[in-house]
């Protein structure tokens, strides 16, 4: 089985978002290479990066100290019907 397929199956086996490190440990893949491979599935819409709660709509998320401290996590993208509702944008962004 290809590593790319194993990545996808890892996410299919859990409902929890997984961090890069967690997936890298499970598949024993070098994290930097894994990150690049995850980008492939993200581009194809099979996996999405989880931005905690309301931060998805925040324009400051790339500079938010609390957010940047947290590990980047991903989850299986199961279509728009299952996508979490987008909360109002963070007031930090206004």
């Amino acid at each position: 089985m290809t590593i790319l397929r194993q990545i996808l199956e890892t996410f299919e086996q859990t409902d929890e978002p997984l961090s890069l490190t967690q997936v890298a440990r499970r598949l024993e893949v070098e994290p930097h290479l894994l990150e690049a491979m995850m980008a492939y599935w993200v581009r194809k819409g099979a996996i999405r990066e989880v931005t905690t709660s309301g931060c998805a709509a925040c324009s400051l998320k790339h500079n938010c100290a609390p957010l940047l401290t947290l590990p980047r996590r991903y989850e299986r993208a199961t279509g728009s019907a299952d996508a979490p509702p987008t909360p109002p944008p963070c007031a930090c962004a206004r």
Partner: protein
Amino acid sequence: MVTICLAGNPNAGKSTIFNALTGARQHVGNWPGKTVEKKEGRLWLDGQEIAVVDLPGAYSLSAFSAEETITRDFLLDAQPDAVVAVVDAANLERNLYLVLQLLEMRVPLMIALNMSDVAESRQIHIHRERLAERLGGLPVISMIGSREIGLDALKEAMVQVARRRVKAAPVYADLGPAVESEIAALCSLIEADANLRLYPARWLAIKLLEGEDDLGTRIGPALAAAAAAARDRIAAETGEDADTLIADARYRFLGGIVSYAVTRAAADGLTFSDRIDRVLAHRRWGVLVFLALMWVVFQFTANVSAPLLDWVDGIIAGPVTRWAAALLGVVGLGGSWVESLVVDGIIAGVGGVLVFVPVLFSLYVALAVLEDSGYMARAALVMDRFMQRLGLHGKSFLPMLVGFGCNVPGIYATRTLENPDDRKITAFLTTFMSCGARLPVYVVFGSAFFGAASGGLVFGLYALGVGVAVLTSLLLTRLVFRSKTAAPFVIELPPYRLPNPKTVGLYVWSNTARFIHNAGTVILAASVVIWLLLAIPVGTGQFANVAPGDSLFGATSRVIAPALAPAGFGQWEAASSLMAGFVAKEVVIASMNQVYTGADEADEPEPPSTLGEDLAGIVTGLGEAVVLTGQEIVNIVPRTLNIIPGLNVPEANFLGRADDAGSDSALQSALRAAFTPLAAVAFNVFILLYVPCMATVAAMRQEFGARWMLAQVAYTLVVAWLAAVLVYQGGLLLGLG
């Protein structure tokens, strides 16, 4: 004309290199039929004019997006003389995926290994020769585009590649037997078709197997059908899409190249970060280091920013106020209610907020440096055990830390917590973290009543805020959210590094700009309302010509004042300041200035000055403020050492001035007349604990709904009143009154 294009992933630094190459000789437009920006420029190299095209950022040539389609079509149709693949050296694996596809396309290629300084700072060492070797002997130029380092070598390589003087061997990833056999079959068909001779056969075969539908206009139906059949055969034989098989093989191939050409320090035993973490992330030492760093942060925030705060305050209270009054005088509104509104309402109100920009700037600099250095993740880790004891998640610490700067972003920072109960409790507690806006109140009262010992009052109030938060947390987790289960705390510790000035600058700017924006909206409106309440007479008096005590503001405050009498500050003036503080804590001092001294400080008569004198004063003041800022930075060391009993390290005094503790004397004299020292402490306790500002309450409502917001408002009012009464009455019982 020779055409050279720049291709690369988004954020790889293409535009920086494009600008460095072309300077002002560039034209910006749109790609035909697209809204994607097209940048073209001119460059003279080796006596020849060269057209440089900055292609849109693309992760691959697979037409996932308009940018990728444009890049692919330009390379196919324009046939550039050289292609510079701009690669982010710190994200090599991801960036090389595009490079590999460019190699498949057989374009005249070279690599600009950009941001090599960032890669080195992350302990990623790229052996350039090894990388070039594995890429078939392509020129690989190490660059720092932002500083134009490597630019000359890049230009030289561009000429060599464009003139076909570089002999690069073909480099292909082995895509596996199933795919390779179908590629071979498709290549035969492509090479037999005269219309397709323009295209590299292997590249086109791979694209067809990847299912690139939009290539249909370039190929005939027979080839499309053959490609579809080939994809089906691959899927049947391997149980996997050809697309995924190809991508997987490419990544494996890249993994091999990178493991040969790149050394990462993290792979070799204990890293520099690991060694530092032995202390900083230690269960006990880590907490001590954290407390010490927080001390430095508060010193930095409160004292280092003070000279610039005074400078801004001086400008707003002095020249800006004088210029506004003079301007209104010119248009015939001098001495009218309009002048009062502009000077006493808007300038005093909005200006009263803007003077804190240096304070917040300092705080955000400190937080950004801690964050970008990688320390913040360690702080959350070492505080996790403490937070768990409170029934909270380790991550709850971060919004509370942010709350020390301003409660509003602290409330929004709770979004980083997954558990809704954790979010609610953390937001509740964050309002007890004494925000920067409350600090001026402590400072004014502290210096008025306790002189040199005012630092003790300030520190005690901060500690009290944390203490009340701890008690509240225990109360909420044991009585309200009993079923809450503690989620495991997972955090990744990034390697330590020197903070990047650009990242710090961006963080500081975005946060400070938000504060300034709020000053121009919420605070402006609130200032006008307070001015109106102070201008409307109750009973006798005229509009905008009434003593504060006889205004609507004074009358309303008198209703509330008796409830505050048990806490020792039952005067209407104190009640009015607390009411004003609901709008923003910054307004408390501005309001006190008006109601206690009868006029804002800006109204104090000053000797007339010319515009030139004002401007010279501003510049001179800035110079002094910068010198004094340096002095305060130096003084962090003696102030920190002087905490140790018995030590008395002298502080630096660059300008040789006497201590200016006597400033704000009009207000401080009025406060000494109105408050006893014990009542002053009780008042500050109330300021610390009572309802946070309007913006924080609005944030609470937005995040958690009206019920939780109202619960929080009621709880803070009750706690503040109880604590203030306890302090005052307890003090009286102990004979401290």
